[in-house]
């Protein structure tokens, strides 16, 4: 088994074992529950704005695990071991992104099913939401790992992470929410383009940040 696959497997196993993968989902559902309390349980209104609210909940849920994506491995010296073995930091970052997505993306898409019932979304909107999440969550995972590497070891890293990650995630939110309408194909393509750019860029930024944190 190659080193990359081993890293991915290890991180996925850790994510599911610790129950850490569950936390963002509960948070996601909690936000979906809070939203009707805030705007009132009017079905027509919820159906209209619910998809966008779920995208926002996904963004916030992506922020939640940021403080323990890289930091535990950096503190326990696992990242140093990878470096000693000659694994490139960019590769480690890419493997971590893939592992984080496996622990974050598909569960979030499953959690979107009950959440869409809570917000009274119709079937077509739900389909477009799931499609958008499938395209957009890799980029959210990539941004999460990148933010985690950038704020590694800084005081107040949690608050800093929100400040760093959310402005970069704005295009995902705009195009993701835009893709919910019946004529959302154009926005979906833009969402795909944005997600590809972010996912391709993030391993290099995260890898450079990991290297900078080491010396």
């Amino acid at each position: 088994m190659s080193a990359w696959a081993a890293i991915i497997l290890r991180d996925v196993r850790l994510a599911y074992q610790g129950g850490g993968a569950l936390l963002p989902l509960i948070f996601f559902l909690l936000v979906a529950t809070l939203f009707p309390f805030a705007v009132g349980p009017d079905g027509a209104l919820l159906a209209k704005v619910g998809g966008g609210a779920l995208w926002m909940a996904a963004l916030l849920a992506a922020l939640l695990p940021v403080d323990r994506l890289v930091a535990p491995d950096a503190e326990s010296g696992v990242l140093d071991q990878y470096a000693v073995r000659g694994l490139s930091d960019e590769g480690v970052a890419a493997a971590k992104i893939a592992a984080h997505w496996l622990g974050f993306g598909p569960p979030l898409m499953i959690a979107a099913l009950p959440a869409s019932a809570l917000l009274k979304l119709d079937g077509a909107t739900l389909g477009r939401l799931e499609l958008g999440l499938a395209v957009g969550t890799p980029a959210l995972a990539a941004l999460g790992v990148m933010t985690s590497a950038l704020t590694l070891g800084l005081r107040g890293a949690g608050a800093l992470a929100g400040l760093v990650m959310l402005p970069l995630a704005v295009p995902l939110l705009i195009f993701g929410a835009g893709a919910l309408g019946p004529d959302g194909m154009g926005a979906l393509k833009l969402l795909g383009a944005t997600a590809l750019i972010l996912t391709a860029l993030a391993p290099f930024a995260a890898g450079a940040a990991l290297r900078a944190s080491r010396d």
Partner: protein
Amino acid sequence: MFRGWPSRPLRTARGPLIPRRAVHIFANPARFLSIARPLTPWLGWPGLLLIATGLVSGLFLTPPDYLQGESVRIMYAHVPAAWLGMAGWSGIAVASLMQLIWRHPLAAVAARAIAVPGALFAAICLLTGSIWGRPTWGTWWEWDGRLTSMLVLFFLYIAYIALSSAGAERGSNDRVSAIFGVVGAANIPIIHYSVEWWRTLHQGQSIGLAGSKIDGSILWPLPLTTLGFTLLFAAIVLMRMRAMLAEAKVEARLKRMASE
């Protein structure tokens, strides 16, 4: 395998892409200071003078616009602030690249020095735009492409400042904020082209290389304030860089005294 950023300048067949001398000539802080110190007043005072001239003539000498009336005069502050808000992040991105590629010691100082005035001018741009929008568009805020991306740029500035000051507190190198500076630069072309991609409320580009769609009678103070604010911005950046270098010097001296 990808092992770190290239530590040597990029090379072409005939030699370095950018001569090493050109990059490293100001790597020595003493040499930089010997130029920055006299340059600061030569940038700052003419800048203030140009701003004063431009604002006075913009407020009292130019005729009101035929459509927008007197409110058009806020343009003399809004346009330079928007330009400097975007130019500031471009400067951060260039300085960050220089720091990452050539490990230029002053580039990190320059990027950090640009961040605060850049954020200030982005905020001025948003505020004056909002005040201008109320009488002309009938709303304080509109979710228009250019306004949204400028607001995102403002938040990026705040994140950059928070990130670099948290890094400085820990005493680490500034490479992390440099990486963020390069990544955040993706927003600059979006702001620039937003008025062409999403035509909503903000007007398209009025001034280009080919000429201006604004009448000359109200346009002429604008270059004065733009140049003035730019010179003032440069002077502020130089002052902040000098202050940071002085701070580093004091810290180094204290450390040396403590160890003796």
